[in-house]
């Protein structure tokens, strides 16, 4: 079953580019839907894959597999037509297959191979862009090549320190983060979102560092994560480019997920694992909404008010809702994760807890600032031909509905993540 999970999108990536645009989109959607269905079924039946034993479902990745498949499915729905040519759809399925394989993998060596393969989107974007516009790609290439080398060396030598450095680069943790804003500023937005939002680095940290690393390494990881959360939240406030602002908010919120891995607190760890899902869904939707806007307005800048709320109220409301969910607003899943994370972190490191809380405060301001600048403050008339398509509405509404629905009834997700946290704590020997 698990080998099918990666095989379906990979097969789709070979097949879809040969089709005409209409059937290609339908086939890609079918492959993504099938991948989601397989992920959901696989999540319900833990165990190793009989064909490829390096793939397995356990407490940690059980919920993450449908989460990743859902993100790609929503991205496929929301991708504007300019970015949805058969070749581009094939590339998207290829990236999905590789990401799902990484999330299903439990073997260190195989993870190392998949770590390199999951850098493929960088090269795909580099091929797509004219040479003069590859500046951000070049920065990402340098940093991520370094992360690949460090990861390989870390796995080969069994060194958590080298793995830590590799993961810090991949996650955009200060001071190894500079590629992330450049990547978001340069790559196509759906590709950038799908490359970053699933957070492969966090999975690698949970599988390869958390169970084995010495306490001081986790302290370094946690300190750097909290510093990143605070620093990135501050820098997001002054951005005048929508993509860069999104990149910094994402870095801040995703760093909080890692902060949960730091302590000896099961509550903080559970909170971090919930934030992984909630901020992933919310920031994925947030980024895709930005892509929907860009398809109509071109590159969105935050130096002026754009207006347009009245002509696209659902997208505006969803943008606000997803932004607020990503920073832990009450009645959303983000609140549940942030609550457990802060509660657990404070019991171990009170200062970290306050810093993390301050980061979420600043990110909330950034989210509302972006909403006001992108949808309010000006009277604009939108060409009816540019109205939102049903599939775009569906993608945004699906993610917004999920973060609110799971926020109102969070216990199944809390239970699942708590079991994953217990498993990790057990593996570390600190029940």
């Amino acid at each position, binding site marked *: 079953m698990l080998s099918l999970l990666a095989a379906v999108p990979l097969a789709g990536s070979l097949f879809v580019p040969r089709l005409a645009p209409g059937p290609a989109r339908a086939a890609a959607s079918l492959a993504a839907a099938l991948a989601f269905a397989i992920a959901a079924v696989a999540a319900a039946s833990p165990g190793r894959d009989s064909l490829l034993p390096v793939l397995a479902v356990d407490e940690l990745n059980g919920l993450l597999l449908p989460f990743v498949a859902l993100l790609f499915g929503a991205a496929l729905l929301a991708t504007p037509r300019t970015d949805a040519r058969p070749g581009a759809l094939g590339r998207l399925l290829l990236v999905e297959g590789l990401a799902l394989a990484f999330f299903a993998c439990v073997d260190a060596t195989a993870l190392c191979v998949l770590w390199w393969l999951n850098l493929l989107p960088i090269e795909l974007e580099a091929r797509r862009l004219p040479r003069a516009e590859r500046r951000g790609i070049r920065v990402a290439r340098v940093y991520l090549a370094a992360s690949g080398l460090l990861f390989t060396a870390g796995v080969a030598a069994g060194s958590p320190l080298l793995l830590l450095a590799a993961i810090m680069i991949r996650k955009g943790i200060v001071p190894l983060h*500079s590629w992330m804003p450049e990547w978001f500023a340069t790559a196509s937005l759906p590709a950038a979102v799908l490359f970053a939002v699933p957070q492969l680095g966090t999975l690698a940290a949970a599988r390869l560092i958390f169970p084995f690393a010495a306490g001081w390494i986790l302290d370094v990881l946690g300190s750097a994560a909290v510093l990143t959360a605070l620093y990135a939240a501050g820098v997001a406030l002054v951005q005048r480019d929508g993509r860069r602002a999104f990149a910094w908010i994402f870095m801040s919120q995703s760093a909080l997920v890692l902060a949960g891995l730091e302590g000896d607190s099961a509550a903080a760890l559970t909170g971090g694992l919930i934030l992984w899902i909630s901020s992933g869904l919310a920031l994925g939707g947030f980024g895709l909404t930005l892509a929907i806007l860009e398809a109509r307005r071109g590159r969105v800048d935050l130096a002026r008010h754009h*207006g347009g709320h009245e002509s696209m109220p659902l997208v505006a*409301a969803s943008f606000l809702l997803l932004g607020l969910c990503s920073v832990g607003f*009450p009645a959303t899943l983000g609140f549940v994760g942030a609550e*457990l994370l802060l509660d657990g972190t404070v019991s171990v490191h009170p200062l970290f807890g*306050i810093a993390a809380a301050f980061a979420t405060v600043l990110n909330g301001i950034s989210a509302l600032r972006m909403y*006001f600048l992108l949808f309010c403050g000006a009277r604009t008339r939108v060409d009816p031909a540019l109205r939102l398509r049903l599939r775009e509405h569906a993608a945004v509404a699906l993610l917004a509905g999920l973060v609110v629905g799971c926020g109102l009834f969070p*216990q199944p997700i809390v239970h699942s993540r708590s079991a994953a946290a217990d498993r990790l704590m057990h593996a570390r020997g600190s029940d």
Partner: protein
Amino acid sequence: MSAPELALAAAVLPLLLVAILGLALFVRRPLSEPATGILVAACFLGALAGFVAAAVRMAGIPRREVPLGEWFGIAGHHFEFRLLLDRLSLAFAAYAALLCGLVGVFAHRYLHREPGYARFFFLLALFAVGILMIVLAGDMELIFAGWEIVGLSSALLVAFFHDRPLPVQNGLRVFVVYRVCDIGLLAAYILVHHELGTGRLTGLFAAPITAGTLVSFLVLLAVAGKSAQIPFSGWLPRAMEGPTPSSAIFYGALSVQAGAFVLLRLSPLFERAPAARAAIVALGLVTAAHAALVGRVQTDAKCALSYASMTQVGLILAEIGLGWNTLALVHLLGHGSVRSLQFLRSPSLLLERHHAENRVGGLPAPREPFRFLPAGARRWLYRFALERAYLDAALERFVVAPFLGAIRRLDGLERAWSARWGGRR
């Protein structure tokens, strides 16, 4: 029905209203104006009746804690919903439902055919949910969640006129002050939870905590932000960009009074922190003096009323700090009712004044209150008041500008570093 059932049913009504109005907006099928008006009036009337009936049933019972079940939980950490019913919470809840209902009825006509009509009522209902969560909460978690909802709905209503830049800028400014001050309540709640293992209010009232004074000061920070106390008072006149009905209920009554309510609710905590009580008295009195002075030079009715609100809320805080809680509650309910009425009448103030002058043949000019001062001092005082005691300018110059300046410099360094690796464009 028992008192808890009545209170719970009353509290659920605004939640239902949020769900109905929100769903209608989400599927782009907003209810008609008459249907919205009837629904809003019925909801708040029902809530009012429920809270009054619960208060009647509670006669003779000083306090009742009502567990509603667990929202989510893991081993050692449980987030439970719990209501705390007593004279304070039920009186304030009934008052909140009454004001929300009256403002809803007024706004139904005031916003007739306004493009954001449905959005206004959705945000009003959301605000009501938030304020009732604060008022009825039996846990600090629930107070914090309500606090956040009140902040967001306030900011969105200040920015109600979405197609103009100024309301939007002011909405963001209000939200920034709220969020920064909210860190106080969040930190207080985390500290309480850390020490007691629960955010339960009855637990907090029963057991003294070692960080009690620190927690009290953190709560005071949040209260200062929400109740527009010095030095955060500058957002209140800016909030007048919102539609008049929301100004009436938010800045004449419930929103600015939420801070005072939380101080009353947590008064057992403050009783064990004399330094924090002294700080509340000082903060309240200084704010009252400041607002009384600045309010005298305001040139539009809503701003003058907002400063009048600030003055009274400052006095209410001073009363709470002095331990005169019953007086403070009466003052709070009376002031909110009168001020809301004044706000609702403010759009027709000039017309009413004109009619009054016609009837009596001219009204006497107001008396100069500082005529005993030398002319130079009066001019200085006038300018001081006109500049709102330079509070906004000081915050801008000494807090916001250095903070944002430092971040911009860091951002510049970030870009320069990336340019080294990626090559310049």
